[in-house]
């Protein structure tokens, strides 16, 4: 994960917000729980404490935005009209696909935005983010 974070920080014009605080993360997780939306894993919480939201080359990863609904993980998941919200939380998106976390299966999933078919699965957040951000396979 640290290798990916270092790599991301070197990308020109990669837009991120101020790192999320532990208090903000706990607060958001409680909001998700109350509204019966699946929770994000510990690995993603740790990621948010270093890189909170990503906007890069037309690709977006959610985080915690106290100012607006925009890229805020709770607000965006609440707005999205998707089934199985209690099992799956959306972590980001590009023009065609969602990056999601399936809490029940404990897997990161790449889901087609229209058909909602699962196209790829990952057990590791770094690989899932690399896929969404189109960071080349080694």
């Amino acid at each position, binding site marked *: 994960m640290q290798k990916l974070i270092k790599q991301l920080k070197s990308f020109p014009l990669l837009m991120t917000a101020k790192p999320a605080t532990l208090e903000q993360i706990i607060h958001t997780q409680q909001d998700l729980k109350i509204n019966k939306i699946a929770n994000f894993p510990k690995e993603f919480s740790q990621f948010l404490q270093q890189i909170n939201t990503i906007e890069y080359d037309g690709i977006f990863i959610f985080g915690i935005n*106290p100012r607006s609904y925009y890229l805020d993980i709770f607000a965006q998941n609440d707005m999205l009209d998707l089934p199985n919200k209690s099992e799956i939380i959306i972590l980001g998106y590009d023009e065609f696909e969602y990056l999601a976390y399936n809490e029940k299966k404990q897997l990161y999933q790449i889901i087609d935005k229209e058909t909602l078919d699962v196209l790829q699965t990952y057990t590791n957040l770094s690989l899932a983010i690399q896929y969404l951000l189109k960071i080349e*396979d080694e």
Partner: protein
Amino acid sequence: MAKRQSNMGININTAQDLIYLIVLDKALSQISHKKRRKKNKNEKLTKEEQENLDNLLCLKNSLDLFFLPDNKKNSVEYRNQQQKIYNLDELIENIIHSKNTEIKQHVELLMEKEGLTFVNREASPISAEEKFLIKTDFHGLSHYPSDLCLSNFFIKKRNEANDKVPSTIDEQYYNLNDVPSWKFIKQFKNFQKRAPQFIKSMQAMNITPQELKHLNAYDMIYMLKLYQNKNNIFPLENAKSKFIKHFIANYENEFREYMHSNRQVIEYALHQKGIQINTGGENDNRGYQNFINQIIAQMKLKGSVPPLFNIHHKRPIKDINNQQNLALANSVDNLCLIIENPYHIMLHMFDSNSEGKKIYNRMVKRVELSPKMIFFGGFNKKFQFFQKQTQNIQDILLLKIQKENKCKNL
């Protein structure tokens, strides 16, 4: 015509767009806000929430100032302007009173009043293979397709490939038309140009010409990527980068002008996202200039989508309905550079229904943008760019021949 200036010292068009940006952001934020847990149960509103409401009320009371109809306007324009004020006024009222259903309705109404039209989606059938090719053409070939999609035949060949020597069968015996999905793959110039690489990659995998019929599109793309990686071949340029490079090559001046005249809009959007970027102070134009220069340099060099923007497919890939030319989905005519928040998000707000059914089981709405629109920077027509008229070489030659024939006849 002299530009009308608002009290804020900015162009009236920019001021109007800034109001839309503020109100729409607040509207979309409000939809989920009510569901958030209060930190302190006794506290009705936090200080920040109260300030937000006060600001919105203040904005509501001053709408006339920014949307004040010009006396010179005719009655139709006057009515339209007044209607916009009513709509915004109602929308703000709904935000303040957290009426979520009404908020969505007013957002839709506002979009319609600003000239956006809703149409039903066609949602023609499209296979996962075809969709995969459209996505790969758009985003490029950064990852190997998942093993879940590869054919059993190919997986077996791939596993054997390390033990066997590459095929020595001459290239001329490989007919790509024998691959069932080649009829789709070749529709994309990006892939068509790489036909020799596809054949070489098949030879490397020890796939014989008789076995081509077993390959699917995922196998083909997998082999291409493997071949390019092994031979250090520069990967294909994706449609996304091509579009951005085309856009900045043809509309750099307009884009610069937009970024400068809408500085307040851009800085507000950055602030809303909590981005700490040095765009300079109010009187420091150099910082903001550097920011724009950096963005444009990346657009030219890498074809990167500028921050705060996204690329919108005007006709969704399911609505293209042209099996003979899938590449149309990623053509310049079908793409539009658009501000992500709130405009692009709003365009997709009506894509889904509450049941979350598959798209081909439902008729949902989409916003129809002009086929010529290439940039959407706001509702105001001044912040929208349309494709310039260009004549291709054949049209020019035809005109020349017609002109010469006319001269001869005379």
